[in-house]
Protein backbone atom coordinates (compact mmCIF):
# COMPACT_ATOMS: atom_id res chain seq x y z
CA UNK A 1 0.00 0.00 0.00
CA UNK A 2 1.49 3.36 -0.93
CA UNK A 3 2.17 5.89 1.82
CA UNK A 4 -0.10 8.90 2.03
CA UNK A 5 0.11 11.23 -0.89
CA UNK A 6 -1.69 14.52 -1.37
CA UNK A 7 -5.40 14.15 -1.96
CA UNK A 8 -6.21 14.32 -5.63
CA UNK A 9 -9.51 14.20 -7.33
CA UNK A 10 -10.18 10.70 -8.49
CA UNK A 11 -12.61 9.97 -11.18
CA UNK A 12 -15.56 8.73 -9.17
CA UNK A 13 -16.88 5.64 -10.90
CA UNK A 14 -17.77 2.17 -9.77
CA UNK A 15 -14.76 0.76 -11.58
CA UNK A 16 -12.47 2.66 -9.24
CA UNK A 17 -13.99 1.27 -6.09
CA UNK A 18 -12.36 -1.97 -5.11
CA UNK A 19 -14.05 -5.16 -4.19
CA UNK A 20 -13.76 -5.93 -0.49
CA UNK A 21 -13.34 -9.62 0.26
CA UNK A 22 -13.44 -11.13 3.72
CA UNK A 23 -12.40 -14.77 4.02
CA UNK A 24 -12.68 -16.86 7.18
CA UNK A 25 -12.75 -13.74 9.31
CA UNK A 26 -12.70 -14.52 13.04
CA UNK A 27 -12.63 -11.76 15.64
CA UNK A 28 -11.85 -12.38 19.30
CA UNK A 29 -11.85 -10.08 22.32
CA UNK A 30 -9.61 -11.91 24.73
CA UNK A 31 -11.22 -15.34 25.04
CA UNK A 32 -14.60 -14.33 23.76
CA UNK A 33 -15.33 -14.93 20.08
CA UNK A 34 -17.39 -12.13 18.57
CA UNK A 35 -17.31 -13.21 14.94
CA UNK A 36 -16.71 -16.72 13.74
CA UNK A 37 -15.41 -17.72 10.36
CA UNK A 38 -17.24 -15.22 8.18
CA UNK A 39 -16.62 -15.03 4.46
CA UNK A 40 -18.26 -12.21 2.52
CA UNK A 41 -17.72 -10.24 -0.64
CA UNK A 42 -18.73 -6.61 -1.03
CA UNK A 43 -19.07 -5.71 -4.69
CA UNK A 44 -17.80 -2.36 -5.92
CA UNK A 45 -20.30 0.44 -6.23
CA UNK A 46 -22.98 -1.29 -4.14
CA UNK A 47 -24.58 -0.80 -0.77
CA UNK A 48 -24.48 -3.89 1.42
CA UNK A 49 -26.51 -4.02 4.59
CA UNK A 50 -25.23 -6.11 7.47
CA UNK A 51 -28.16 -7.27 9.54
CA UNK A 52 -28.60 -9.17 12.76
CA UNK A 53 -29.58 -8.80 16.40
CA UNK A 54 -27.37 -7.32 19.10
CA UNK A 55 -24.29 -9.36 19.80
CA UNK A 56 -24.13 -10.94 16.39
CA UNK A 57 -20.80 -9.32 15.60
CA UNK A 58 -21.97 -6.72 13.10
CA UNK A 59 -19.97 -3.84 14.55
CA UNK A 60 -16.93 -6.07 15.04
CA UNK A 61 -17.02 -7.01 11.39
CA UNK A 62 -17.33 -3.39 10.35
CA UNK A 63 -14.53 -2.09 12.55
CA UNK A 64 -12.16 -4.79 11.35
CA UNK A 65 -12.49 -3.48 7.82
CA UNK A 66 -10.53 -0.32 8.63
CA UNK A 67 -8.47 -1.94 11.36
CA UNK A 68 -10.15 0.17 14.01
CA UNK A 69 -10.08 -3.06 15.98
CA UNK A 70 -6.42 -2.23 16.60
CA UNK A 71 -7.60 0.34 19.15
CA UNK A 72 -9.29 -2.27 21.30
CA UNK A 73 -6.93 -3.96 23.74
CA UNK A 74 -6.97 -7.72 23.53
CA UNK A 75 -8.70 -7.84 20.16
CA UNK A 76 -7.46 -10.34 17.62
CA UNK A 77 -8.53 -10.59 13.99
CA UNK A 78 -7.73 -13.76 12.09
CA UNK A 79 -8.41 -14.66 8.49
CA UNK A 80 -8.03 -12.62 5.37
CA UNK A 81 -9.35 -9.24 4.36
CA UNK A 82 -8.67 -8.03 0.85
CA UNK A 83 -9.12 -4.45 -0.31
CA UNK A 84 -8.96 -5.01 -4.03
CA UNK A 85 -5.90 -7.19 -4.29
CA UNK A 86 -4.16 -6.09 -1.10
CA UNK A 87 -4.24 -7.90 2.23
CA UNK A 88 -5.30 -5.55 5.02
CA UNK A 89 -4.62 -7.68 8.05
CA UNK A 90 -0.85 -7.86 7.75
CA UNK A 91 1.37 -6.41 10.48
CA UNK A 92 3.15 -4.21 7.97
CA UNK A 93 -0.04 -2.69 6.58
CA UNK A 94 0.01 1.08 6.68
CA UNK A 95 -3.20 1.62 8.62
CA UNK A 96 -3.01 5.39 8.22
CA UNK A 97 -3.14 4.99 4.47
CA UNK A 98 -5.79 2.29 4.81
CA UNK A 99 -8.07 4.62 6.71
CA UNK A 100 -7.59 7.17 3.98
CA UNK A 101 -9.11 4.72 1.55
CA UNK A 102 -11.71 3.30 3.92
CA UNK A 103 -13.81 5.90 5.73
CA UNK A 104 -16.14 5.37 8.67
CA UNK A 105 -19.30 6.98 10.01
CA UNK A 106 -20.34 6.22 13.56
CA UNK A 107 -23.69 5.82 15.23
CA UNK A 108 -23.55 9.22 16.88
CA UNK A 109 -21.93 12.16 15.14
CA UNK A 110 -18.46 12.70 16.58
CA UNK A 111 -17.42 16.01 15.10
CA UNK A 112 -14.45 17.79 16.59
CA UNK A 113 -15.30 20.80 18.80
CA UNK A 114 -14.06 23.19 16.15
CA UNK A 115 -15.53 25.25 13.36
CA UNK A 116 -17.26 23.51 10.46
CA UNK A 117 -14.46 24.54 8.16
CA UNK A 118 -11.75 23.22 10.45
CA UNK A 119 -13.50 19.86 10.86
CA UNK A 120 -13.19 19.39 7.12
CA UNK A 121 -9.78 20.97 6.73
CA UNK A 122 -8.02 18.94 9.38
CA UNK A 123 -8.20 15.54 7.65
CA UNK A 124 -7.09 17.12 4.38
CA UNK A 125 -4.08 18.79 5.94
CA UNK A 126 -3.31 15.68 7.95
CA UNK A 127 -2.99 13.66 4.78
CA UNK A 128 -0.71 16.13 3.08
CA UNK A 129 -2.76 18.79 1.33
CA UNK A 130 -1.07 22.18 1.41
CA UNK A 131 -2.72 24.29 -1.25
CA UNK A 132 -5.36 26.42 0.47
CA UNK A 133 -7.30 26.99 -2.77
CA UNK A 134 -7.50 23.30 -3.51
CA UNK A 135 -8.61 22.66 0.05
CA UNK A 136 -11.35 25.28 -0.06
CA UNK A 137 -12.57 23.96 -3.38
CA UNK A 138 -12.68 20.41 -2.10
CA UNK A 139 -14.56 21.46 1.02
CA UNK A 140 -17.18 23.31 -0.98
CA UNK A 141 -17.63 20.47 -3.45
CA UNK A 142 -18.05 17.90 -0.71
CA UNK A 143 -20.53 20.05 1.20
CA UNK A 144 -22.54 20.43 -1.98
CA UNK A 145 -22.42 16.67 -2.42
CA UNK A 146 -23.91 16.03 1.01
CA UNK A 147 -26.45 18.78 0.52
CA UNK A 148 -25.11 20.99 3.31
CA UNK A 149 -23.51 23.79 1.35
CA UNK A 150 -26.50 26.10 1.26
CA UNK A 151 -27.22 25.46 4.91
CA UNK A 152 -23.73 26.18 6.24
CA UNK A 153 -21.93 28.36 3.73
CA UNK A 154 -22.57 31.46 5.83
CA UNK A 155 -21.49 29.89 9.10
CA UNK A 156 -18.37 27.99 8.20
CA UNK A 157 -16.42 29.51 11.10
CA UNK A 158 -19.01 28.63 13.72
CA UNK A 159 -18.67 25.54 15.88
CA UNK A 160 -19.78 22.36 14.21
CA UNK A 161 -21.53 21.38 17.41
CA UNK A 162 -24.18 24.05 16.85
CA UNK A 163 -25.68 22.06 13.96
CA UNK A 164 -28.69 19.82 14.35
CA UNK A 165 -28.29 16.06 14.71
CA UNK A 166 -29.06 15.36 11.08
CA UNK A 167 -26.78 18.12 9.88
CA UNK A 168 -23.98 16.87 12.14
CA UNK A 169 -24.20 13.37 10.75
CA UNK A 170 -24.13 14.72 7.19
CA UNK A 171 -21.11 16.79 8.15
CA UNK A 172 -19.46 13.61 9.44
CA UNK A 173 -20.14 12.11 6.05
CA UNK A 174 -18.62 15.15 4.37
CA UNK A 175 -15.59 14.89 6.64
CA UNK A 176 -15.06 11.30 5.60
CA UNK A 177 -15.75 12.09 1.93
CA UNK A 178 -13.15 14.89 1.62
CA UNK A 179 -10.55 12.15 1.64
CA UNK A 180 -12.15 10.50 -1.40
CA UNK A 181 -12.47 7.09 0.22
CA UNK A 182 -13.02 4.06 -1.94
CA UNK A 183 -15.03 2.29 0.73
CA UNK A 184 -17.40 3.82 3.27
CA UNK A 185 -18.30 1.99 6.48
CA UNK A 186 -21.42 3.12 8.31
CA UNK A 187 -22.40 1.87 11.77
CA UNK A 188 -26.15 2.48 12.19
CA UNK A 189 -25.75 5.98 10.78
CA UNK A 190 -29.39 7.00 11.20
CA UNK A 191 -30.26 5.44 14.54
CA UNK A 192 -29.81 8.76 16.37
CA UNK A 193 -31.70 10.78 13.77
CA UNK A 194 -35.32 11.78 13.28
CA UNK A 195 -37.24 10.33 10.31
CA UNK A 196 -36.80 13.37 8.07
CA UNK A 197 -33.03 13.55 8.59
CA UNK A 198 -32.92 9.79 8.10
CA UNK A 199 -34.57 10.21 4.72
CA UNK A 200 -32.08 12.87 3.67
CA UNK A 201 -29.11 10.75 4.72
CA UNK A 202 -30.47 7.63 3.02
CA UNK A 203 -30.92 9.46 -0.28
CA UNK A 204 -27.37 10.68 0.05
CA UNK A 205 -26.03 7.17 0.66
CA UNK A 206 -27.79 5.80 -2.40
CA UNK A 207 -26.21 8.53 -4.52
CA UNK A 208 -22.77 7.80 -3.12
CA UNK A 209 -22.72 4.41 -4.77
CA UNK A 210 -21.37 6.11 -7.83
CA UNK A 211 -18.18 6.83 -6.08
CA UNK A 212 -17.57 4.19 -3.45
CA UNK A 213 -18.55 0.87 -2.01
CA UNK A 214 -20.80 1.26 1.00
CA UNK A 215 -21.23 -1.16 3.87
CA UNK A 216 -23.98 -0.32 6.32
CA UNK A 217 -24.64 -2.02 9.65
CA UNK A 218 -28.27 -1.54 10.52
CA UNK A 219 -30.92 -2.69 12.94
CA UNK A 220 -33.60 -1.26 10.76
CA UNK A 221 -34.94 -3.85 8.33
CA UNK A 222 -37.05 -1.30 6.51
CA UNK A 223 -33.95 0.79 5.92
CA UNK A 224 -32.09 -2.19 4.49
CA UNK A 225 -34.98 -2.76 2.16
CA UNK A 226 -34.95 0.87 1.09
CA UNK A 227 -31.31 1.39 0.33
CA UNK A 228 -29.30 -1.85 0.22
CA UNK A 229 -28.50 -3.72 -2.97
CA UNK A 230 -27.20 -6.71 -1.06
CA UNK A 231 -27.76 -7.88 2.47
CA UNK A 232 -26.01 -10.25 4.85
CA UNK A 233 -27.45 -11.69 8.03
CA UNK A 234 -25.25 -12.43 11.01
CA UNK A 235 -26.49 -14.58 13.83
CA UNK A 236 -24.99 -15.71 17.12
CA UNK A 237 -25.96 -18.66 19.29
CA UNK A 238 -23.75 -17.32 22.07
CA UNK A 239 -20.44 -18.47 20.71
CA UNK A 240 -19.75 -15.85 18.07
CA UNK A 241 -21.62 -14.44 15.10
CA UNK A 242 -21.78 -16.50 11.96
CA UNK A 243 -22.94 -15.63 8.50
CA UNK A 244 -26.35 -17.18 8.02
CA UNK A 245 -27.34 -15.91 4.63
CA UNK A 246 -26.35 -13.31 2.05
CA UNK A 247 -27.70 -12.22 -1.30
CA UNK A 248 -29.69 -9.61 -3.20
CA UNK A 249 -31.84 -7.75 -0.70
CA UNK A 250 -35.02 -8.21 -2.63
CA UNK A 251 -34.47 -11.93 -2.98
CA UNK A 252 -33.45 -12.40 0.62
CA UNK A 253 -36.41 -10.52 1.97
CA UNK A 254 -38.86 -12.06 -0.50
CA UNK A 255 -37.82 -15.69 -0.32
CA UNK A 256 -35.22 -16.30 2.34
CA UNK A 257 -33.36 -19.60 2.08
CA UNK A 258 -32.70 -20.19 5.78
CA UNK A 259 -35.33 -20.57 8.44
CA UNK A 260 -33.41 -18.28 10.78
CA UNK A 261 -33.45 -15.59 8.12
CA UNK A 262 -37.17 -15.95 7.65
CA UNK A 263 -37.79 -15.84 11.40
CA UNK A 264 -35.62 -12.75 11.84
CA UNK A 265 -37.03 -10.87 8.88
CA UNK A 266 -40.53 -11.47 10.04
CA UNK A 267 -39.72 -10.28 13.51
CA UNK A 268 -40.32 -13.61 15.23
CA UNK A 269 -36.85 -13.61 16.78
CA UNK A 270 -34.01 -11.17 17.53
Amino acid at each position, binding site marked *: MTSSKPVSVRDPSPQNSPRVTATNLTIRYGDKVALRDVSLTFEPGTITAILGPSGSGKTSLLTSLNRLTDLIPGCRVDGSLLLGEEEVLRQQTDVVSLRHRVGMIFQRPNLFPMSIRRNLELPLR*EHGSRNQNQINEKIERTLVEVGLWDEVKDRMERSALTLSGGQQQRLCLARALVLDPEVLLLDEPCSALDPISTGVVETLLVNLRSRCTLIVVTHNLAQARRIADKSALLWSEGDGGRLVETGETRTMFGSPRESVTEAYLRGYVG
Partner: protein
Amino acid sequence: MTRRKTWFQFLFDVSVWLSPLPIAGLFLWLIGDLILRGSGAFWPDAAEVGGNSVVIVFEQIIQFLTAAPERAGRGGGIGPILISTGLILSVCMTVALPIGLGTAIGLSEFLPVNSRFGRLVRRSLDVLSGVPSIVFGLFGNAFFCRFLGLKFSIASGGLTLACMVLPLLIRSAEEGFRAVPDSQRQAAAALGFSRWSTVFRIILPQASLGIVVGLILGTGRALAETAALIFTSGYVDRMPRSLGDSGRSLSIHIYDLSMNVPGGNENAYASALVLVASLAVINLGAHQLMTRLLKREVAYA
Protein backbone atom coordinates in the same frame (compact mmCIF):
# COMPACT_ATOMS: atom_id res chain seq x y z
CA MET B 1 -38.38 3.35 74.66
CA THR B 2 -39.30 5.68 71.85
CA ARG B 3 -38.83 8.60 74.22
CA ARG B 4 -35.24 7.57 74.98
CA LYS B 5 -34.33 7.26 71.30
CA THR B 6 -35.63 10.72 70.63
CA TRP B 7 -33.47 12.08 73.48
CA PHE B 8 -30.34 10.56 71.94
CA GLN B 9 -31.30 11.72 68.48
CA PHE B 10 -31.83 15.20 69.85
CA LEU B 11 -28.33 15.21 71.30
CA PHE B 12 -26.90 14.08 67.99
CA ASP B 13 -28.80 16.71 66.08
CA VAL B 14 -27.53 19.40 68.43
CA SER B 15 -23.91 18.30 68.05
CA VAL B 16 -24.25 18.29 64.30
CA TRP B 17 -25.66 21.80 64.25
CA LEU B 18 -22.97 23.02 66.64
CA SER B 19 -20.02 21.38 64.90
CA PRO B 20 -19.39 23.89 62.14
CA LEU B 21 -19.39 26.80 64.58
CA PRO B 22 -15.94 26.41 66.18
CA ILE B 23 -14.41 25.61 62.80
CA ALA B 24 -15.91 28.48 60.88
CA GLY B 25 -15.53 30.74 63.86
CA LEU B 26 -11.83 30.14 64.40
CA PHE B 27 -11.15 30.39 60.70
CA LEU B 28 -13.01 33.65 60.25
CA TRP B 29 -11.16 34.95 63.32
CA LEU B 30 -7.89 34.00 61.63
CA ILE B 31 -8.78 35.65 58.34
CA GLY B 32 -10.14 38.74 60.02
CA ASP B 33 -7.04 39.05 62.16
CA LEU B 34 -4.84 38.59 59.11
CA ILE B 35 -6.61 41.31 57.19
CA LEU B 36 -6.67 43.73 60.11
CA ARG B 37 -3.12 43.27 61.29
CA GLY B 38 -1.79 42.81 57.79
CA SER B 39 -3.29 45.95 56.39
CA GLY B 40 -2.40 47.77 59.58
CA ALA B 41 1.11 48.07 58.19
CA PHE B 42 -0.27 50.14 55.35
CA TRP B 43 -2.54 52.55 57.15
CA PRO B 44 -0.90 55.91 57.44
CA ASP B 45 0.18 57.07 60.89
CA ALA B 46 -1.98 59.76 62.42
CA ALA B 47 0.67 62.36 61.65
CA GLU B 48 0.81 61.57 57.99
CA VAL B 49 -2.86 61.98 57.27
CA GLY B 50 -2.37 65.04 55.14
CA GLY B 51 -3.24 64.21 51.58
CA ASN B 52 -5.62 61.63 50.24
CA SER B 53 -5.40 58.65 52.58
CA VAL B 54 -6.39 56.19 49.87
CA VAL B 55 -3.49 57.32 47.72
CA ILE B 56 -1.14 57.05 50.67
CA VAL B 57 -2.28 53.51 51.39
CA PHE B 58 -1.80 52.64 47.74
CA GLU B 59 1.68 54.14 47.75
CA GLN B 60 2.57 52.26 50.91
CA ILE B 61 1.49 49.01 49.32
CA ILE B 62 3.55 49.60 46.20
CA GLN B 63 6.46 50.67 48.36
CA PHE B 64 6.18 47.49 50.36
CA LEU B 65 6.01 45.31 47.31
CA THR B 66 9.02 46.79 45.62
CA ALA B 67 11.47 47.96 48.27
CA ALA B 68 14.22 45.82 49.72
CA PRO B 69 13.98 44.68 53.33
CA GLU B 70 15.74 46.83 55.92
CA ARG B 71 17.00 45.91 59.37
CA ALA B 72 16.51 42.22 58.81
CA GLY B 73 13.05 42.85 57.50
CA ARG B 74 11.61 44.92 60.27
CA GLY B 75 11.41 47.77 57.82
CA GLY B 76 11.48 48.22 54.12
CA GLY B 77 9.65 45.86 51.84
CA ILE B 78 9.67 42.50 50.18
CA GLY B 79 10.72 43.36 46.62
CA PRO B 80 13.70 41.01 46.29
CA ILE B 81 11.77 38.32 48.09
CA LEU B 82 8.94 38.52 45.59
CA ILE B 83 11.51 38.21 42.80
CA SER B 84 13.10 35.19 44.44
CA THR B 85 9.70 33.61 44.98
CA GLY B 86 8.79 34.23 41.36
CA LEU B 87 12.05 32.72 40.17
CA ILE B 88 11.65 29.63 42.34
CA LEU B 89 8.13 29.13 41.01
CA SER B 90 9.33 29.58 37.44
CA VAL B 91 12.03 26.97 37.83
CA CYS B 92 9.54 24.66 39.46
CA MET B 93 6.95 24.96 36.70
CA THR B 94 9.44 24.95 33.83
CA VAL B 95 10.65 21.56 34.99
CA ALA B 96 7.43 20.08 36.30
CA LEU B 97 5.17 20.98 33.38
CA PRO B 98 6.88 19.10 30.55
CA ILE B 99 7.61 16.06 32.69
CA GLY B 100 4.12 16.09 34.17
CA LEU B 101 2.41 16.55 30.83
CA GLY B 102 4.57 13.95 29.14
CA THR B 103 3.92 11.46 31.92
CA ALA B 104 0.19 12.11 31.79
CA ILE B 105 0.14 11.64 28.00
CA GLY B 106 2.13 8.44 28.32
CA LEU B 107 -0.07 7.09 31.08
CA SER B 108 -3.43 7.89 29.55
CA GLU B 109 -2.89 7.68 25.79
CA PHE B 110 -0.06 5.29 25.13
CA LEU B 111 0.11 2.69 27.82
CA PRO B 112 -2.45 -0.12 27.73
CA VAL B 113 -5.16 0.28 30.32
CA ASN B 114 -4.05 -2.46 32.66
CA SER B 115 -0.32 -2.22 32.12
CA ARG B 116 1.82 -3.11 35.08
CA PHE B 117 4.21 -0.27 34.41
CA GLY B 118 1.32 2.20 34.39
CA ARG B 119 0.00 0.94 37.67
CA LEU B 120 3.43 1.07 39.27
CA VAL B 121 3.97 4.64 38.17
CA ARG B 122 0.56 5.70 39.43
CA ARG B 123 1.11 3.97 42.74
CA SER B 124 4.48 5.61 43.18
CA LEU B 125 2.96 9.02 42.41
CA ASP B 126 0.30 8.41 45.05
CA VAL B 127 2.98 7.68 47.62
CA LEU B 128 4.93 10.72 46.46
CA SER B 129 1.98 12.98 47.18
CA GLY B 130 1.94 11.78 50.77
CA VAL B 131 5.58 12.50 51.55
CA PRO B 132 5.87 15.24 54.20
CA SER B 133 7.30 18.49 52.91
CA ILE B 134 10.19 18.51 55.38
CA VAL B 135 11.34 15.20 53.94
CA PHE B 136 11.31 16.83 50.52
CA GLY B 137 13.52 19.46 52.09
CA LEU B 138 15.93 16.79 53.34
CA PHE B 139 15.94 15.12 49.94
CA GLY B 140 16.40 18.40 48.11
CA ASN B 141 19.29 19.26 50.35
CA ALA B 142 20.99 15.90 49.94
CA PHE B 143 20.30 15.52 46.21
CA PHE B 144 20.17 18.93 44.58
CA CYS B 145 22.32 20.96 46.95
CA ARG B 146 24.98 18.39 47.71
CA PHE B 147 24.94 15.51 45.26
CA LEU B 148 24.37 17.68 42.20
CA GLY B 149 26.38 20.51 43.69
CA LEU B 150 23.79 23.21 43.23
CA LYS B 151 24.19 24.40 46.83
CA PHE B 152 21.67 26.69 48.45
CA SER B 153 20.08 28.22 45.41
CA ILE B 154 16.88 29.16 43.68
CA ALA B 155 17.55 26.31 41.29
CA SER B 156 17.70 23.75 44.11
CA GLY B 157 14.52 25.12 45.64
CA GLY B 158 12.68 25.14 42.34
CA LEU B 159 13.72 21.61 41.48
CA THR B 160 12.68 20.33 44.90
CA LEU B 161 9.28 21.98 44.53
CA ALA B 162 8.95 20.46 41.06
CA CYS B 163 9.14 17.02 42.66
CA MET B 164 6.43 18.06 45.10
CA VAL B 165 3.91 19.38 42.61
CA LEU B 166 4.46 16.68 39.99
CA PRO B 167 1.74 14.30 41.30
CA LEU B 168 -0.76 17.15 41.37
CA LEU B 169 0.04 18.23 37.81
CA ILE B 170 -0.15 14.69 36.49
CA ARG B 171 -3.45 14.02 38.19
CA SER B 172 -5.02 17.21 36.79
CA ALA B 173 -3.69 16.58 33.30
CA GLU B 174 -5.03 13.03 33.37
CA GLU B 175 -8.42 14.37 34.42
CA GLY B 176 -8.27 16.67 31.43
CA PHE B 177 -7.52 13.77 29.11
CA ARG B 178 -10.23 11.63 30.64
CA ALA B 179 -12.73 14.39 29.95
CA VAL B 180 -12.16 14.02 26.23
CA PRO B 181 -14.73 11.44 25.05
CA ASP B 182 -13.48 8.33 23.31
CA SER B 183 -15.66 9.14 20.33
CA GLN B 184 -13.19 11.89 19.48
CA ARG B 185 -10.31 9.40 19.44
CA GLN B 186 -12.34 7.04 17.28
CA ALA B 187 -13.25 9.79 14.86
CA ALA B 188 -9.62 10.79 14.51
CA ALA B 189 -8.49 7.19 14.06
CA ALA B 190 -11.12 6.54 11.43
CA LEU B 191 -9.88 9.58 9.53
CA GLY B 192 -6.40 8.12 9.48
CA PHE B 193 -4.78 10.30 12.11
CA SER B 194 -1.67 8.78 13.66
CA ARG B 195 -1.67 8.41 17.46
CA TRP B 196 0.51 11.46 17.95
CA SER B 197 -1.45 13.55 15.47
CA THR B 198 -4.54 12.71 17.46
CA VAL B 199 -2.79 13.76 20.66
CA PHE B 200 -1.51 17.06 19.33
CA ARG B 201 -4.45 18.13 17.20
CA ILE B 202 -7.49 16.68 18.93
CA ILE B 203 -6.81 15.64 22.51
CA LEU B 204 -4.42 18.28 23.84
CA PRO B 205 -6.53 21.24 22.70
CA GLN B 206 -9.57 19.71 24.32
CA ALA B 207 -7.72 18.79 27.50
CA SER B 208 -6.00 22.14 27.77
CA LEU B 209 -8.42 23.47 30.36
CA GLY B 210 -7.71 20.63 32.75
CA ILE B 211 -4.01 21.09 32.22
CA VAL B 212 -4.16 24.80 32.96
CA VAL B 213 -6.20 24.14 36.11
CA GLY B 214 -3.50 21.73 37.24
CA LEU B 215 -0.85 24.31 36.54
CA ILE B 216 -2.65 26.91 38.61
CA LEU B 217 -3.29 24.58 41.52
CA GLY B 218 0.33 23.45 41.41
CA THR B 219 1.50 27.05 41.53
CA GLY B 220 -0.71 27.65 44.54
CA ARG B 221 0.68 24.63 46.31
CA ALA B 222 4.26 25.62 45.55
CA LEU B 223 3.65 29.19 46.68
CA ALA B 224 2.47 28.05 50.08
CA GLU B 225 5.42 25.76 50.63
CA THR B 226 8.02 26.52 53.26
CA ALA B 227 9.61 23.46 54.81
CA ALA B 228 10.90 22.13 51.50
CA LEU B 229 12.64 25.41 50.76
CA ILE B 230 14.43 26.22 54.00
CA PHE B 231 17.37 23.97 53.23
CA THR B 232 17.29 24.14 49.49
CA SER B 233 16.83 27.71 48.41
CA GLY B 234 18.17 29.29 51.54
CA TYR B 235 17.55 32.34 53.64
CA VAL B 236 19.19 35.21 51.83
CA ASP B 237 16.92 38.21 51.55
CA ARG B 238 18.89 40.18 48.98
CA MET B 239 17.99 40.50 45.32
CA PRO B 240 19.19 37.34 43.56
CA ARG B 241 21.41 37.83 40.56
CA SER B 242 21.03 34.38 39.05
CA LEU B 243 19.32 31.05 39.55
CA GLY B 244 22.42 29.86 41.32
CA ASP B 245 22.04 32.51 43.98
CA SER B 246 20.30 31.75 47.20
CA GLY B 247 17.01 33.51 47.77
CA ARG B 248 14.18 33.24 50.24
CA SER B 249 10.58 32.74 49.35
CA LEU B 250 7.72 34.78 50.77
CA SER B 251 6.66 32.00 53.13
CA ILE B 252 10.18 31.66 54.53
CA HIS B 253 10.28 35.44 55.05
CA ILE B 254 7.10 35.24 57.11
CA TYR B 255 8.60 32.44 59.19
CA ASP B 256 11.86 34.25 59.74
CA LEU B 257 10.24 37.55 60.69
CA SER B 258 7.90 36.01 63.22
CA MET B 259 10.31 33.56 64.82
CA ASN B 260 13.77 35.06 64.59
CA VAL B 261 13.32 38.81 64.30
CA PRO B 262 12.00 40.63 67.34
CA GLY B 263 9.61 43.32 66.19
CA GLY B 264 9.21 41.64 62.87
CA ASN B 265 5.59 40.70 63.44
CA GLU B 266 4.12 43.69 61.67
CA ASN B 267 5.90 43.00 58.43
CA ALA B 268 5.29 39.29 58.87
CA TYR B 269 1.59 40.00 58.86
CA ALA B 270 1.84 42.30 55.87
CA SER B 271 3.75 39.63 53.98
CA ALA B 272 1.21 37.02 55.03
CA LEU B 273 -1.55 39.21 53.66
CA VAL B 274 0.26 39.49 50.33
CA LEU B 275 0.73 35.71 50.26
CA VAL B 276 -2.87 34.88 51.09
CA ALA B 277 -4.19 37.50 48.65
CA SER B 278 -2.07 36.01 45.84
CA LEU B 279 -3.32 32.54 46.67
CA ALA B 280 -6.89 33.78 46.70
CA VAL B 281 -6.49 35.22 43.21
CA ILE B 282 -4.84 32.03 41.97
CA ASN B 283 -7.52 29.78 43.39
CA LEU B 284 -10.29 32.01 42.10
CA GLY B 285 -8.80 31.75 38.63
CA ALA B 286 -8.65 27.96 38.89
CA HIS B 287 -12.23 27.86 40.11
CA GLN B 288 -13.48 29.93 37.18
CA LEU B 289 -11.68 27.72 34.71
CA MET B 290 -13.04 24.59 36.32
CA THR B 291 -16.62 25.76 36.00
CA ARG B 292 -15.93 26.51 32.35
CA LEU B 293 -14.51 23.01 31.97
CA LEU B 294 -17.69 21.49 33.38
CA LYS B 295 -19.85 23.58 31.08
CA ARG B 296 -17.87 22.39 28.11
CA GLU B 297 -18.33 18.76 29.04
CA VAL B 298 -22.06 19.25 28.91
CA ALA B 299 -21.79 20.40 25.30
CA TYR B 300 -20.66 16.94 24.30
CA ALA B 301 -23.75 15.23 25.66
